[in-house]
């Protein structure tokens, strides 16, 4: 479903992503792990077509994100970091706009909006303006936006960041609920998340993949059998880099 081919991104003198290749098939949930500044967000932004790669590309369902961006973007649902939303719109108004942009019309458009509201448990806040919502609800509105068109590929950049344990639980449940019929890519720096939802994981450090495998395989790489030890050994000693955002 998704094939990242030798993605590379250079911002001026900083090489944020050096050479990243991986595949995600339908039914898989791939976790992208790494310390802050490792290049996770940049990689996702290239895959979703927000940033043009310096070299390499990504194929989404066979469509090249650089050559055929519109066809590729139709297949992607994207939840960016920090769940950006238009604050002055109502939940229904925003989702209706997204349904329109995704090409739905008339009864189908209403049905899509209703189903997204239901699936993401937004019924209670449907008429509220987005700026009045709590962080957990905002996250779910952005999630609803990403799954409204039933995408084949779902890309989520730190979907549970800053949520309380109950909200994290809800988001993870929603992710698991649609895992079977989609390819899912999740970035995170929360290790428990990988064990909780991912079928496979890669660890990125300084713009490179330093480890790949199932959570169980990963844990076997360190005598302690703990994922955080593996993570630390692989990513330690690297100065925290800040990549220029946008």
């Amino acid at each position, binding site marked *: 479903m998704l094939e990242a081919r030798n993605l590379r991104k250079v*911002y*001026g003198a900083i090489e944020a992503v050096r050479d990243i290749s991986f595949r995600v098939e339908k039914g898989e949930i791939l976790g992208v792990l790494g310390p802050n500044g490792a290049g996770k967000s940049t990689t996702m*932004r290239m895959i*979703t*077509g*927000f*940033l*043009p790669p310096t070299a390499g590309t990504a194929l989404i369902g066979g469509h090249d994100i650089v050559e055929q961006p*519109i*066809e590729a*973007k*139709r297949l*992607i649902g*994207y939840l*960016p*970091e*920090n769940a*950006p*939303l*238009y*604050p*002055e*719109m109502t939940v229904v*108004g925003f989702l209706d*706009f*997204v349904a*329109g*942009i*995704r*090409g739905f019309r008339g009864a189908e458009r209403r049905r899509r909006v209703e189903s997204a509201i239901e699936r993401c448990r937004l019924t209670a806040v449907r008429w509220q*303006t987005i700026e009045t919502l709590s962080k957990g609800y905002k996250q779910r509105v952005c999630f609803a*936006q990403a799954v409204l068109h039933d995408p084949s590929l779902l890309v989520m950049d730190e979907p549970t960041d800053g949520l309380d344990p109950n909200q994290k639980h809800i988001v993870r449940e929603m992710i698991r609920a649609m895992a079977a019929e989609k390819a899912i890519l999740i970035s995170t720096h929360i290790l428990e998340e990988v064990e909780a939802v991912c079928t496979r994981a890669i660890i990125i450090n300084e713009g490179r993949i330093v480890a790949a495998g199932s959570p169980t395989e990963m844990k076997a790489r360190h005598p302690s059998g703990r994922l955080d030890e593996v993570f630390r050994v692989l990513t330690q000693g690297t100065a925290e880099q800040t990549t*220029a955002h*946008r």
Partner: protein
Amino acid sequence: MKRCMENTWELFRREFRAYFESPVAYVFLVFYLMLIGFLTFFVSRFYEANQADLKYFFFWFPWVNLLLVPAATMRLWTEERRTGTIELLLTFPVTLTEALAGKFLAAWAFMTFATLLTFPIVVTTMWLGNPDLGAVVGGYVGAVLLAGAYVAVGILTSTMTRNQVISYVLAFVICLFLALAGWPPVMDIVNKWAPSWLVNGVAALSVMPHFESLQRGVIDLRDLVYYASVMTLAIFGAYLVIENRKST
């Protein structure tokens, strides 16, 4: 092609509604109308002139728009970037051209709406006397085109920064240049030291001659070409800024 129109329409609709989803639009409209009314009646002494002539009314549009169009456009891209929604917008299956067109048309439609809300002044004048209808239509066409040119400039400056105030000031300065470049008092000063080809070249960029010729009720192809070029150039500039901003 159909898809392109539909996308632009959806983006236009969201952006146009966004004006009215906050109180800003209403404050803006009230201030706009009060300013035009005040300048027409008290500064230009519309009543004392004892003529049912709208030239004092249309005279003020370049200046009122100079003050207020940048305020109507300063939010358009700065907020997308500040809040990060640009990441949603540009990962939807729409092209950057459609996104720019949607925003531009929404802001232009909003300014057209504000301009047309001045109709009571025109109706009053028609009731008092017989203004030249051709000049009224020409004056409005000129005012709307002028607002369109300013809106395009405002879109361009809003792509350059995340800060609304900077976007406003940049748009104000560029529009002020467009308004003053062909203004005789300014040209006289510049004429003293600059070669005449330069003075004439700069003056040709000005909106004023085009605005004034439309006010006489003559819709000249050259004026339309001028406005279309300003809008296209500014929007194309905005396109380049966003394309390149994305990669840094």
